[in-house]
């Protein structure tokens, strides 16, 4: 039986060569070109994908073979039955991009970030480490999204999109 990992709900075989990164598997082997290669060294976040639908990781630093049996979601896997994920729609509504190169990574990353907030993971700017819940603020979003760079500087739109989606979700 071939060893596989699941990409956007489809089982795909692991690459024969263990040197293939998850990023190259997605882009070059599976033609899922939404995920972007910015730096290929962990420094920009353009390659961010989700593990098990909620944990954000960098696919450029991941060897694909390490993720045998895991569920990976890229930007292509977020829309359900032709309906955009609320964050995808919010990025459009708030002009959360200009050239769009960083956007797939920004959106996957912000989904992972919301999950971390829900779990109460503290950040560098969280005052009270003993608190069970984290107060949602612009400062928290900025710090938690600092692993995703945007050369176009669309940060205000990105923060607005994340804030609005979060506000709707907790309402």
């Amino acid at each position, binding site marked *: 039986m071939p060893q596989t990992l699941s990409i956007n709900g489809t089982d795909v075989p692991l690459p024969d060569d*263990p*040197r293939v990164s998850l990023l190259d598997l997605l882009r070059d082997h599976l033609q899922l070109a939404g995920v972007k290669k910015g730096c290929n060294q962990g420094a920009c976040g353009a390659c961010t994908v989700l593990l098990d639908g909620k944990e954000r990781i960098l696919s450029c630093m991941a060897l694909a073979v390490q993720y045998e049996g895991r569920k990976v979601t890229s930007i292509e896997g977020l829309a359900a039955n032709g309906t955009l994920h609320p964050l995808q729609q919010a990025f459009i509504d708030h002009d959360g991009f200009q050239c769009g190169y960083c956007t797939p990574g920004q959106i996957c990353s912000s989904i992972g970030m919301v999950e971390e907030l829900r779990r109460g993971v503290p950040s560098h700017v969280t005052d009270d*480490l003993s608190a069970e819940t984290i107060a949602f603020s612009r400062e928290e979003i900025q710090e938690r999204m600092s692993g995703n760079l945007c050369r176009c500087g669309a940060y205000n739109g990105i923060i607005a999109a994340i804030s609005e989606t979060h506000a709707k979700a907790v309402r």
Partner: protein
Amino acid sequence: MNPFTYARAADVDDAVQLAAGSQAKYLGGGTNLVDLLRETLERPTALVDVTGLPSAIEERSDGSLLIGAAATNTAVAEHHSVRTRFPMLTRAISAGASAQIRNMATVGGNILQRTRCNYFYDHAGSRCNKRSPGQGCDAIEGANRNHAILGGSPSCVATHPSDMCVALVALGAVVHLQSTRGTRTLPLTDLHRLPETSPDQETFLKPGELITAVEIPALPFASDSTYRKVRDRASYAFALISVAAAIDVKDDIIQDVRLAFGGVAPKPWRAWNAEAALKGKPATLENFCVAAEAELSDASPLRDNGFKVALTNRTMVAVLDALVREKNGGSNP
């Protein structure tokens, strides 16, 4: 990248067997090793994936915490006991890298991450004793703003980049090791080697030794500890300098204190001299300054990093002052 085989270790015994007798490397989250493989700065013939090994964080009856080496940086930072009993560790981890990297990075890999010295990475253009022993070190006379002021040598002045390790050495963490020859423990302060004449030798680990866990002994006064990192931008940057600190003051006298520095030395730097200068003394700003001086009087700044001496001094004093004020409800000692 040179070719290598890949195997996922089922358990600790399996891991050390798989790594024995070959040019194998253990693979954690890969956030440092994959980079080093791409740059061919590491050329193992086999990778042994250790991310499936124990990762639990166990609170033991003697008050210590035992953290499986495969625990992710995020898992450690968010653990309730770490946040409340050893907050400097949560602060240090969350000041490092990015959320994505912290989700991937393991405790074992964080400890053994390699320096970010630019000349080390620059095969084509630079000489580096760590990469090519005996070649010379281009940092010593070069752009050395990020390099060491303590513990360096004429062979190498690279810094150890970890934030997490700075808190761990301050807390007196002990590393659990296993190889085919058995198990042993080593204080984290004794794991990294200073460069002296062989900067390519970075640790006192034996060939094939695996980090299985990190133990943090009980330290009641660490519940008010903290970590302050100074960097060129507010987030997602390595430390210029950093300070981990915990202090226990009764009747204005310092009963005990823990201090460690990051970004200033080839290893996470436990400030033993500063600690010794403080114990039994009144908790005053003057004494904090004298203690910082005691640690930093040996500093050997290079062309571009003299600022680190004053910055470490001021940061250490400010962090101790803040900790004492916080306990006194805001008043000056």
